[in-house]
């Protein structure tokens, strides 16, 4: 594998001219359109804190604590300068976009912190295999720690991050992406560990990608860095969920602002088109391990206008189903997030504990998740709950 990182393979020259062309196009665009130029958004180290906090809201209790990912991104930005966050309109259709991500146990990552070289190594090796330089990187998962990883790559390689992701939230498996629904293969994919080992995967489908990469990650010590789901900007335009990273930053910025609890909550619900499902106090948290996932049930007793009601929340890393007095009020793939009743900060499933006062909110998922094909992949039945998905907004109007 080491030869990949030294001399470029023959195809790369084609790739380079392609990049040069695209850069030139971008420069011309910038000169032609000053208005657009003024809108270009630079992400500084301080913005990463907003991103990490907002990503925890979209992480629906899971997705991993962005703490280490945020530290890495901030260190990279401080070293190499701010990162440009661009919209899909700033890329040419033929431009290559390669998402960057982390795979494995977030618990491992807070102990065996990466060397820092992995995300770029994975990215470069996939570029070399494809024989084309990427014009941008992007996030696979706007919820949790994978929101921050692309900024590590972007800062070091001085390429922009596309303001989009492939989930609009956090999900536990590689095929659970809008790209997968669009028929895009996660492979060729490169996994890299901190020792410098790299695995290049070529698979027959994304289910095999999940199984093989999960096992490789375990052998690597429980965490790895990935470059995967490489696709053209045209495909990204069609299949990604756009604007999610800037939305996460906006949410984080909002939650760190000095606004009152009520103002923060109402603006958060406005930004996410979400609704308050329940206010109460956590009276029970039950955890169990099944199939490598941290599963559990949390029970809240209602307070205020929810007094005399009970909300039961089922989670498997992420919050998946909310039942009010036994009746489902929100289910995956819609987003269910538990917020601290006072600070409005998100509480992850690992942090849930007896006695916390919390507000549970529901936020509608990206429309792509509401098709029959998508629900077979990420609906409540896939996670083992014998209930149908009813979209959040429909439920709300039915309740009225």
């Amino acid at each position, binding site marked *: 594998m080491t030869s990949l990182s030294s001399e470029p393979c023959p195809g790369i020259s084609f790739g380079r001219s392609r990049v040069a062309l695209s850069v030139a196009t971008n420069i011309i665009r910038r000169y032609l359109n000053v208005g657009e130029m003024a809108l270009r958004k630079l992400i500084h180290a301080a913005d990463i804190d907003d991103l990490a906090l907002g990503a925890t809201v979209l992480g629906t209790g899971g997705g991993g604590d962005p703490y280490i990912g945020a530290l890495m991104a901030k260190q990279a930005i401080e070293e190499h300068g701010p990162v440009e966050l661009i919209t899909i309109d700033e890329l040419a259709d033929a431009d290559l976009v390669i998402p960057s991500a982390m795979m494995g146990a977030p618990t491992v990552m807070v*102990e065996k912190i990466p060397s*820092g070289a992995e995300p770029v190594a994975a990215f470069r090796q996939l570029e070399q295999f494809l024989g084309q330089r990427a014009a941008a990187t992007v996030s696979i998962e706007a919820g949790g720690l994978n929101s921050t990883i692309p900024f590590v790559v972007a800062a070091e390689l001085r390429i922009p991050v596309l303001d989009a992701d492939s989930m609009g939230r956090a999900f536990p498996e590689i095929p659970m992406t809008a790209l997968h629904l669009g028929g895009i293969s996660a492979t060729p994919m490169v996994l890299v560990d901190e020792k410098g080992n790299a695995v290049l995967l070529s698979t027959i489908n994304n289910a095999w990608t999940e199984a093989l990469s999960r096992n490789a990650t375990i052998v690597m010590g429980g965490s790895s860095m990935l470059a995967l789901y490489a696709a053209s900007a045209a495909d990204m335009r069609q299949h990604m969920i756009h604007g999610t990273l800037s939305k996460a930053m906006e949410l984080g910025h909002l939650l760190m602002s000095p606004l009152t609890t009520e103002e923060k909550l109402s603006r958060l619900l406005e930004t996410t088109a979400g609704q308050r499902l329940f206010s109460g106090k956590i009276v029970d948290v039950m955890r169990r391990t099944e199939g490598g996932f*941290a599963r559990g049930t949390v029970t809240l007793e209602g307070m205020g206008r929810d007094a005399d009601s009970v909300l039961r929340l089922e989670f498997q890393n992420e919050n998946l189903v909310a039942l009010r007095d036994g009746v489902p009020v929100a289910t995956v793939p819609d987003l269910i997030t538990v917020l601290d009743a006072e600070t409005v900060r998100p509480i992850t499933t690992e942090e849930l504990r007896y006695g916390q006062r919390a507000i549970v909110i529901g936020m509608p998922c990206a429309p792509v998740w509401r098709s029959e094909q998508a629900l077979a992949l990420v609906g409540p039945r896939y996670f083992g709950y014998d209930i149908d998905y009813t979209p959040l907004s429909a439920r709300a109007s039915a309740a009225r």
Partner: protein
Amino acid sequence: MAYRIGIDVGGTNTDVVLLNEQHQVLAKTKRPDSADILTGIRLAVEDVLRLSGVDPSQITHAMLGTTQVTNAIIERRDLNDVVIIRLGAPATRAVKPLAGWPADLRERYQPYAYIVEGGHEYDGREISTLNETELYRIAREVKGRVQAVAITGVFSPVNPAHEERAAAIFREVLGEDVHISLSYQIGSVGLLERENATVLNAAVAAVAKRAALSFKQALAHLGIHADLYLTQNDGTLMSVDYALMYPILTIACGPTNSMRGAAYLTGLKDAIVVDVGGTSTDVGVLVNGFPRESLVAVEVGGVRTNFRMPDLFSIGIGGGSVVQASGPSVTVGPRSVGYRIVEEGLCFGGRTVTFTDAAVALGKAKVGTHPVTLDAALASAAYDVAVQAVTDAIDRMKTSAGKVPLILVGGGSVLLPDEFAGVSEVHRPDHFDVANAIGAAIAQVSGRVDRIFAMEHTSREKVLEEAVSIATAEAIRAGADPGSVEVVEIEEVPIAYLPGNAVRVKVTVAGTLASYGTSAAIQGDDDARP
């Protein structure tokens, strides 16, 4: 007869109690702190000896709770120069040691921070072979320039072998006089927080040594030759020798001692404890007789750590809090006259209106030497503001919507009413004003384990059994009577995305102190750590 004394050296006062074998309070004292801890302890202990008439030679145990270590970190006073060794390269280079530390401490410790090849995976495999050559090189380089070594290996709570080997190398090169802190003995999974705690532990080793020495000398001066213990933040004891190795564990023992004292004085195991001081009020929760622990990362002197710390909610209202009125709104605190209340408070003939004065004016408490004349509306508004803040704090800490018992301790607790919303009954135990010293005196000895276990090829019962036996062995090493050790808490947290049903298991056990002879023998056995 055998007696024990409990000492609490706080920010304002040194409190001492003397108990008999039945744990009855025979004498107590409260003295303003002296400039040096030795004199302060000596004078206060002299008080209780005089008041009780107990022969110093009959005192078998002495327990000290002190804020010396905490203050040294906050004030950056007398800290050791430390070489920081992280074993984990090539992993962990993305976030270097001292990340997120306050600039002054970072500048000071940066020159001797290293990331060396070594460390383990979550399942105990090596990340890299330990680079002994590099460790020898560093040890020779820093020789004579540091007084302490802090060693942190990746996943050392799972496999401490590399930390142990690195310690042996530094010991060999630097000699016996240098303090060595190993992370696996101090913190749990979470590399940065554990490393931070280990570096702080190494930094305060000299301060702790001096405090322990003062403690020993003060008592020896009075003819007391007892077993000496320090209390730690979870409300249990460490022998002085053990505390010299892990001084950082004494952080925040003050509030914990108050809560343990409150539990002992009332016999309640589950209750809310409100400790009212001169400047602030701490609200905590007793669960099974011990303070509930905080789950969030705790900052000490601006450094993020993962110590076991009591879950406290503190408000800036105490007996000396200043009352201010601007138009219709009245505020109480956070500004406080503190211990100067005896000069500045209205009820002592001073000119500042304090929370104490409001309570006295309303007839809620009898404090001071002078009558208080205060506008009734102002007094009543100020009193309501303070009580509402305490009520809100209690409500925040409660674990269920039902009513819970409340224990009031601390000198300022006389100001508070006998009823609070959401509280079933209010307890005001005897000796409430020295609950912290009593908490130190009656403290038990604990042992803890916090590790990741794989449950794949074993049963849940076996894993828990193993965890309990590791914790029990630690408690016995720290001086517990083996027959008295009981499990205080077991917590299992499943870990996502790892094979073999990995579970993080935390177990705490506690037992009473072994008798004099036994515990002395155990204290001598320093090498018995795993």
